[in-house]
């Protein structure tokens, strides 16, 4: 027994494990005694069962405690925690920040030109980008270097990230962080160096990284220094026979 018990009662009951389990269940222990009891609970099934027996029997006492309504923030915090975890386990809630980081990582990897393979980028929440070469397009070293462009969106700090892989005939358009306003879409345009008509590079999908397939006559005009415009259009992109909407952002391709 500890030295603090200077006045033991004559008939102090022996303090065996069963008694410690009762004291532990009731919450009387502290300090080293509590640590020892926790250790026993983790390692000794008989002790753990005895503690659980006490807990089950004294638990109905808590029916006397008046109920109280916690503030709504408590559930909000619990729910946010559960959802963020569910996302990282493949749930549907998208954490844009983590996707942005993944995209930046991908972009960095993509810029290492020689290592770039023909690839389909599959972005599954939580799993990180999966680079899966398509079977009919055997991976090979880039014959030509990719073109990249950044299109800053006003002073929002957001931007479109474009990567063009010469061999893939695809343009990766990253629009992470952008949100749809529900009434407009934004369309990317290539400005041919020969002064020809603007060529569509496709409608941007807000919040996503998408691969846009390019037509041969567009691909012909791709190159270092080629200018890109972003216009604001009705949903679905510029209708046929109508002038393009206002230009809201611009950028230019750079060869990596």
């Amino acid at each position, binding site marked *: 027994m500890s030295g*603090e*018990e*200077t*006045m*033991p*009662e004559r*008939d*102090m*009951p022996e*303090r065996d494990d*069963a*008694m410690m389990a*009762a*004291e532990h269940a*009731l*919450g*009387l*222990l*502290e300090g080293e005694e*509590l640590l020892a009891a926790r250790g026993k609970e983790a390692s000794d099934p008989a002790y753990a069962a005895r503690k*659980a027996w*006490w*807990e*089950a*029997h*004294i*638990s*109905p*006492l*808590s*029916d*006397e*405690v*008046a*109920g*109280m*309504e*916690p*503030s709504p*923030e*408590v*559930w909000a*915090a*619990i*729910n946010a*925690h*559960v959802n963020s975890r*569910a996302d990282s386990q493949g749930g549907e809630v998208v954490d844009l920040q983590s996707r942005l980081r993944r995209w930046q990582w991908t972009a960095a990897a993509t810029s290492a030109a020689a290592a770039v393979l023909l690839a389909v980028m599959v972005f599954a929440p939580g799993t990180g980008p999966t680079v899966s070469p398509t079977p009919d397009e055997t991976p090979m070293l880039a014959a030509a270097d990719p073109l990249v462009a950044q299109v800053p969106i006003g002073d929002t700090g957001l931007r479109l990230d474009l990567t063009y892989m010469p061999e893939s005939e695809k343009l990766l358009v990253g629009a992470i962080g952008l949100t749809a306003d529900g009434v407009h879409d934004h369309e990317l345009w290539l400005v041919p160096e020969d002064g020809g008509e603007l060529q569509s590079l496709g409608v941007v999908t807000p919040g996503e990284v998408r691969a846009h397939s390019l037509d041969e006559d567009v691909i012909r005009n791709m190159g270092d220094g080629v200018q890109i415009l972003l216009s604001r259009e009705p949903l679905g992109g510029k209708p046929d026979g109508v002038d393009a909407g206002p230009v809201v952002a611009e950028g230019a391709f750079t060869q990596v």
Partner: protein
Amino acid sequence: MADTNSDQATIAREQLRANMVRLADGDSAALEKIYNATRVKLFGICFRILGDRKEAEDALQDVYINLWQRADRYDPTRASPISWLSTFARNRAVDRLRTGKVRGGAVPVEEANPLPDEAPLADSLLVDAEQSAQVHTCLGTLDSKTSDNIRSAFFDGYTYAELAERAEVPLGTMKSWIRRGLQKLRTCLEASEAT
């Protein structure tokens, strides 16, 4: 009336039990149902122990997140779900006390802010009346000094040392009182279990 109430109670308990099983099976949506059915009771317990609204809300959050992470710890064949959850919440709250961040307990009743009449019925429906009667009956067989101290340990989260200080008796005396009380309590509970 009484039959209707007990039917409702049985249904409420079984719904809670089913949701606990669903949660253990990985169905996160069950957590909200469990929260809605039990938050008032569990928050009351956390607040009673911790004596501070903010601390109690942190503890409550901790309780449900832990529950979600480790719902498989609940064995539906062995324990009443509300009894198990109450124990879980109380233990988390007492753990917080013991880490020394707060000194709660002894919340004056008027501060405890009991719910007005619209208090969710779910709480009282979940109570297991028989089990409840057992511990009350057995505590009643102890002398009032002993049962008061055991109850204070349970409700306010006091340690031996704190109980001794409050009762102005030596620590050894308090330990002796409570240990003898716990022995009697165990004998009584086991006897009523056997019948």
